[in-house]
């Protein structure tokens, strides 16, 4: 079961919100991800039934956009910017540090289910580089110490 009853209600409303019913696919995928953290093949099939849209159309959208997790993802998705300014400000070294500290490979889930780390492109916060997002929350002007603190807080 991908969606809660509430989730289904939301998706049905979205279908009437835009000129084309297809425009509800992105919001629907966000809803699935909000409720269970990632989007599996079964979720797409269920969305196809709920939305009365071809699974292929939903699959295509799910694959195209990087913010949709197509694999199980930790409760906290740590997305570290490694684009130009963040790279200049040691964002890549910071990513390596986080991965090492959590003993993780990029894209994997930690054993406690808490963390997934990904490298991402510019987050539109280059004046406070290096930057990362935990799910949707920004953490800025980072260094190893701040990252240690952040991870400790998230573990609590």
């Amino acid at each position, binding site marked *: 079961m991908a969606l809660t009853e509430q989730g289904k209600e939301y998706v049905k409303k979205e279908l009437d*919100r*835009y*000129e*084309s*019913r*297809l*425009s*509800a*696919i*992105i*919001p629907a*995928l*966000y809803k699935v991800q909000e409720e269970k953290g990632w989007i599996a093949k079964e979720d797409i099939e269920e969305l196809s039934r709920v939305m009365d849209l071809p699974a292929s*159309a939903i699959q*295509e*959208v799910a694959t*195209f*956009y*990087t*913010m*949709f997790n197509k694999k199980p993802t930790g409760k906290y998705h740590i997305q570290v910017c*490694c*684009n*130009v*300014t963040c*790279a*200049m400000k*040691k964002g*890549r*070294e910071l990513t390596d540090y986080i991965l090492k500290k959590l003993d993780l490979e990029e894209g994997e889930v930690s054993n406690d289910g808490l963390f997934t780390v990904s490298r*991402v*492109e*510019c*987050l*539109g*916060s*280059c*004046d*406070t*580089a290096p930057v990362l*997002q935990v799910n*949707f929350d920004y953490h800025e002007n980072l260094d190893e110490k701040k990252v240690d603190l952040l991870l400790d807080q998230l573990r609590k």
Partner: protein
Amino acid sequence: MAVQYLTEHYDDKDFVSLKGYKAKGGYKDLEKAFKLKPKEIIEMVKASGLRGRGGAGFPTGVKWSFLPDNGEERFLLCNADEGEPGTFKDRLMMEKAPHQLIEGMLISAFAINSKKSYIYIRGEYEYVAVILEKALKEAYDAGLLGKNILGSGFDHDMDVYRGAGAYICGEETGMISSLEGLKGQPKLKPPFPAIKGYLGKPTIVNNVETLAAVKYVIRDGVDAFRKYGTEKSAGTKLFSVSGDVQKPGNYEVPLGYPLKDLIEKECGGLLPGRKLKAVIPGGSSAPVLNAEEAYRATMDYECLAEMGSMLGSGAVIIIDDSNCMVDLLHVILHFYHHESCGQCTPCREGTGWIEKLSRKIVSGSGRLQDIDLLDKVAQNMKGRTICALSDAAALPTISFVAKFRDEFEFFVREGRSKVKGNIYAQSAH
């Protein structure tokens, strides 16, 4: 000197709310616009010289006048995808002044006779989307959106749509595909969106800053708007300055402002003991300037074009002598390869190839021929594709190689960066 024109009230915490916005004269310019004829507004925007702030710098009023006069339903789309690396000004504008954007959009919608608009915002800006939604609700509750707005007889609905992580959805036709519920792949132009856009209907796509600026053309009139800027680059512009300066951030200055002053006066200069090496003046798609060029550049469309670069989105990345240009080009090319939507062969294959070549060099196993090849492949990626992403990868490549060839050659000869202490570039990744 930095100015506070569009950003005048951004320090005021209440400006984000309808009440605070109205306290500063908000929505008065919408009332003013309703007393004008739509055609008059378009003429004013044309005469103001306002050019698109999203990247291409196309004259806004001219774009609007491309709409066909055939009674078809029209759409207005606000491009808030802000994906160009280095850019973070639209985020500030929407976060501090959502109603300024809504008012600018309403005036624009009235001018082009559109009854429906969307703000397409990148998915990562979730908290900003929430701010916008709250502002839209306030506007609906106050009769500023919906039917018969302020008794004008003009109806308009506005909504927010979230992207989901794809740089290509910032390209206007990619954005339209995305909003239509498809993969965000760009479409061949012509037909341009003004003729056949969202759902095949005439559509105007404008950047956040462009639409907000429309309000000021109406508020102050053409001449007052033109008080800032140059003949060909009218008005002020927000520049997102990042990288190796003391005070990175968003700065509003008149177009035509010297880049040297932007670095030294607004941003407090370089970091202690460092020398300027390069500046990317308009987002990572813009060809790089060397220090000598940067120090004589003015921030307007014409000067940067003359220097072979572009004003782009207004993202100014300051690069000092502690950075390795070979490494930075590799970072940039990794991005474009990742973001190519894959429809066009020169872009799909080309971005992959130049990324690989740059990786080869940066990992110490490049050959001298690879430097020429990098340039040659990039040359062949220009102007042959559906959208400008291919050029956006090619142009930086060509400029990096041409202006910093010594660093590329050093890397090939010595197998390491010319810049001392540039550890990441040396450890192949």
